[in-house]
């Protein structure tokens, strides 16, 4: 066990920190879940990209630095500590990109990765449908082969698509084999949102920002080269991304450590003695949990680096970070007392945190996965 960073890793951290100190906007940007805010966030993404901080773990030729998982962790730690803007491109970078790296043709990789890294093209996820939320196998949107047009006709509706109203592209699952059941017969498509026959309607999330969208498809034609990873292979291709959605990539410990630090700062500022004893205990517990999450991540990265990828264990992680995030914010609001109801970064953060136990597979689903795949309890 070695819990120290190598000289080169420390050097990397210093570089990241220095750049962020010099470039992070002094004033927080307006919410990236609004049209105006999204545009400003894209400018920031461009800035990150130009300095090659947008996708540190990607190979150099795709705009990254070929950074190790360790360096990626360091980058994230510094990024959150610096209070840098939310990554509005994250769904592309963290959910789609790994899939393109794994299943994409060289042509697809060249075509989509650089523009994704630079924010020139922004991606939203088109999975959920009105009748397919937790149960993705209930997907009804179809893609029908149209030989004459040399492509596929998309029909149906996606919903709860994060930032769909602002993105240029959507990656999603469509049923290509209507006779197939549940998870079979789905295909993974890359869809430009300006395709004729595609209509997007943004709608508000809990905090009122237009962070959700419904996307309607009416005979929208997409060409064959927009199929990712093979016709009718959509489910197994998609699972690669849920893996990364649930696993490490989206939930770097830096995010929760930074929140925990802010919580502690808030508690000190309210005056440690003025704090109710039970809330004081919860501040300590939340801080302990944030450290536990970081340490467990170090353990996982060590394993992954040694070539042992996480499986169903990622469900343990998802439940823990999502509930930790809620309790970090809940505790902060309790520290604010009567002022808790006022507009604040804590309240906004709390509203956002409440989505954690719901998306990327509700925590109820995750607990089933843990029980069945980690503990081996019977399905029926």
């Amino acid at each position, binding site marked *: 066990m070695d819990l120290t960073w190598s000289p080169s890793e420390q050097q990397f951290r210093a570089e990241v920190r220095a750049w962020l100190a010099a470039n992070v906007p002094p004033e927080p940007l307006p919410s990236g879940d609004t049209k105006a805010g999204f545009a400003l966030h894209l400018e920031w993404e461009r800035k990150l990209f130009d300095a090659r901080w947008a996708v540190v773990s990607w190979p150099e030729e795709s705009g990254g630095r070929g950074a190790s998982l360790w360096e990626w962790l360091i980058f994230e730690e510094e990024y959150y500590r610096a209070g840098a803007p939310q990554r509005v491109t994250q769904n592309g970078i963290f959910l789609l990109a790994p899939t393109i790296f794994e299943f994409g043709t060289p042509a697809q990789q060249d075509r989509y990765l650089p523009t994704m890294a630079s924010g020139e093209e922004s991606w939203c996820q088109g999975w*959920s449908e009105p*009748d397919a*939320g*937790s*149960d993705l196998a*209930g997907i009804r949107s179809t893609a029908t082969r149209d030989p004459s047009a040399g492509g596929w006709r998309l029909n149906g509706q996606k*919903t*709860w698509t994060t930032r769909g109203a602002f993105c240029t592209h959507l990656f999603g699952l469509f049923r290509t084999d209507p006779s197939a059941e549940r998870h079979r017969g789905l295909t993974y498509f890359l869809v430009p949102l300006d395709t004729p026959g595609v209509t997007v309607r943004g*709608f*508000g*999330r*809990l*905090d*009122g920002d237009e962070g*959700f969208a419904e996307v309607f498809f009416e005979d929208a034609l997409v060409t064959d080269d927009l199929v990712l990873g093979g016709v009718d292979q959509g489910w197994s291709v998609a699972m690669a991304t849920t893996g990364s959605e649930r696993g490490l990539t989206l939930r770097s410990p830096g995010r929760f450590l930074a929140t925990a630090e802010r919580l502690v700062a808030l508690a000190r500022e309210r005056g440690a003695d003025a704090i*109710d*004893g*039970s*809330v004081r205990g919860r501040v300590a517990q939340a801080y302990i949990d944030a450290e536990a999450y970081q340490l467990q991540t170090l353990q996982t990265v060590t394993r992954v680096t040694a070539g042992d990828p996480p499986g169903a264990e990622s469900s343990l992680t998802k439940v823990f970070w999502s509930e930790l995030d809620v309790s970090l914010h809940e505790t902060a*609001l*309790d520290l*604010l*007392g*009567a*002022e*808790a*109801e*006022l*507009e604040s970064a804590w*309240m906004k953060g709390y*509203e956002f945190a*409440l*989505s954690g*136990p*719901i*998306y990327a597979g*509700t*925590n*109820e689903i995750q*607990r089933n996965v843990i029980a069945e795949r980690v503990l081996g309890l019977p399905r029926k």
Partner: protein
Amino acid sequence: MEFAFTGDQLAFRDAVRDLLAKECPPSVVRAAWTNADGRSGDGRSGGGAWLALGAMGVLGALVPESANGLGLTELDVVLLAEETGRAALPEPFVEHVFVGAPLVFADHPGVVTGELTVTAGDPLIPWAGSADVLVRLDPDPAVALGRGAKLDLLTSVDGSRRLARLIDATDARPLTRAELSLAFWRGNLGYSAQLLGLARQMLDLTVAYTVDRKQFGAPIGSFQAIKHQLANVRIGIEFAAPLVYRAAHSLAVGDSGAAVHVSMAKAQAAGVATNAARTALQCHGAIGYSYEYDLHLWMKRAWALASTWGDAAWHRERVARAILDVTNETGEQK
């Protein structure tokens, strides 16, 4: 010994419930978020619901009959507050009926009918901008006129609660210690009842949704994970309500433990309502997280009321002091 409401009290509640069902459907609550004054209508005199409540005499319920009020007690109106919570009524109901009117009716008789609106805050005053009379419990407890008062406007997570700090008051008169204490405990009783009503509504809404919503080929309400979360909310409500009703009774009869009883009610009701909100959202999933769906109107009201005028931890500590520290807690003082 009889722990039950009278037929009159229940009939009064039913009348108000029917009134609110008609005058304050979710659409009215939603509209209040964008109204000029955040209330159920859009004039200073409030909206349909407010006017109707005034016509019914409810707004002066705690004002003595000698001053044309109904001369009722906290026990007679606690169920009405619960109903306004259930409807998420976007009006200063507790602030006016429980706190303000009984304090200011002599100088401002208009509050008895609702011709004038009075609101109150500790320290944040909801709907201050559209009120005629303002009661500030903290700092410098005082009654002031709405017109000409210098307000520092603030934004609540509940878009209908237009908050303000009263910075500079016109014609302010200080509150006596007794007035302050009664106002504080009556207000907390009212909020406790509203929190209870909010919890009931969020539970009903979620039960209806989970019976309907199918995933994995079955109504999600048939899954134990959903059933047990909702059962816990129902249990919480079952054992919060009697504390709220007892607190109302204690204030009504001037029980020396009234203040502690109100703290017990507020601590429990705040916990139940916030848990109901959390559970309702989780059981709804993404749709509950949508601004277009009504759930958030109730959730945000619950968050606001749970933390205002002392949150659960604060009131629990009041109880701790009463049972652990003070030997004969009269509970008469804030």
